[in-house]
C-alpha cells in the first residue's frame, strides 16, 4: 500500500496551513518613536514638516555644536562646482550679507594645518549644519544647555 506518501502530503499540507494561521506578527506591545506598527504592515508616512522660512540665528545648546540653519535651503547646491552657502557665509561676503561667518576651524586640515581656503573636509556644509522644521520633539527631552553659552 502506498499509504506513506499520502500521510506525508497531508501532514505537510496541514503544517503549511498552520504556519499560515500563526503568521500574524505582533509588536508585543513595544512602542517605538514612530508609534505602534506591525512589522508586516507599512505605516503611512506622516506629512512633511515645513522648514523654518527665515529666522534669526538659533543659539547653540552645547560647546562645539555645529550651529543649526534657521532658514530654507531648498535648491542650495554644494558640490565640486559651486557652494551656495559660502556665497553668504564665506568670509568674502559675510559682512555684505550680514550672515554668520564660517569659523576658522573650517580652514584647518585634520593635521591642524591652516589652509588659505575652506578645507575639503569641512566643505560639505549640510553634513553638520541642518535646516530646522517647526516640529514637536519626538520624545521627551530634559536636556539643558550649559549655562556658559548664555542661553535663556
Amino acid at each position: 500500500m502506498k499509504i506513506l506518501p499520502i500521510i506525508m502530503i497531508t501532514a505537510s499540507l496541514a503544517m503549511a496551513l498552520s504556519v499560515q494561521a500563526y503568521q500574524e506578527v505582533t509588536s508585543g506591545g513595544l512602542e517605538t518613536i514612530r508609534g505602534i506598527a506591525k512589522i508586516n504592515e507599512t505605516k503611512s508616512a506622516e506629512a512633511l514638516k515645513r522648514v523654518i522660512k527665515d529666522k534669526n540665528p538659533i543659539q547653540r545648546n552645547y560647546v562645539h555644536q555645529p550651529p543649526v540653519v534657521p532658514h530654507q535651503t531648498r535648491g542650495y547646491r554644494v558640490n565640486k562646482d559651486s557652494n551656495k552657502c559660502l556665497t553668504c557665509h564665506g568670509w568674502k561676503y559675510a559682512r555684505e550679507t550680514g550672515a554668520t561667518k564660517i569659523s576658522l576651524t573650517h580652514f584647518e586640515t585634520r593635521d591642524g594645518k591652516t589652509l588659505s581656503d575652506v578645507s575639503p573636509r569641512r566643505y560639505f556644509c549640510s553634513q553638520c549644519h541642518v535646516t530646522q522644521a517647526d516640529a514637536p520633539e519626538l520624545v521627551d527631552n530634559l536636556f539643558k544647555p550649559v549655562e556658559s553659552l548664555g542661553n535663556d
Partner: protein
Amino acid sequence: MTKESKIKSLLSYLKSPSSAALWLILAIGFAGGVIFWGGFNTALEVTNTEAFCISCHEMEDNVYEEYKETIHYSNRSGVRATCPDCHVPKKWTHKIVRKIAASKEVWGMLTGLIDTREKFQDHRRELAEREWKRMKENDSLECRNCHNFEYMDFSEQGNRSVKMHSSALASGEKTCIDCHKGIAHELPDMKGVDNW
C-alpha cells in the same frame, strides 16, 4: 499691321489694365499677406513652447531634467515658468533678434556640439555665461516680466531677502541674475565668477 504697331498696341494693352484686375491683384496681395504673416507668427509661436524646446534630446536630457527639480517647475501655488518665459524676450523686436541668434543653436544641434552629457558639461560654463551676460545687459528683463520690483511686499519676504532687495536691488546696483544664478539649472564650475 506692321511689327511696330503690334508692339505699340501690346504696350498700350499692358499699360491700361482693367480696374477689375487691379483690385484682383490687390486682393491677392492682401490675402497672401495675411496668410504669410499668420503662418509666420504661428510658426514663431510653435517654436516658443516647452514642447518644441525639449524636442531635442540635448535640452530634454540635460537642462529640462535639472529644471524639473526647481521652484520654477514645482511650487505651492502651481504657477510655472517654462523655457521661453525666461529665455525668450516678450517684446516682438527683441524676440525676433533672439530667434535669429538662436539659429546658431540649430547649427550646434546639427553638428552635435553637445550631443552627449559629457560634451554638455564641457560647454556648460560657456553656455551659462552667455545667458548671464544677456540677462545682465537687459537688467534681468525676463525675471521682471513676473517678479516686478514695484510690486514686491517686503513685509512678506524673509529677513535675508529684504536686506538684499531693499539695498542692492533697489539702488539698481545689482540686477536679479547677479545673485540668482543657477536657480533653474545646475551651475558650471564657478571658479572666478563674481560673488561666488
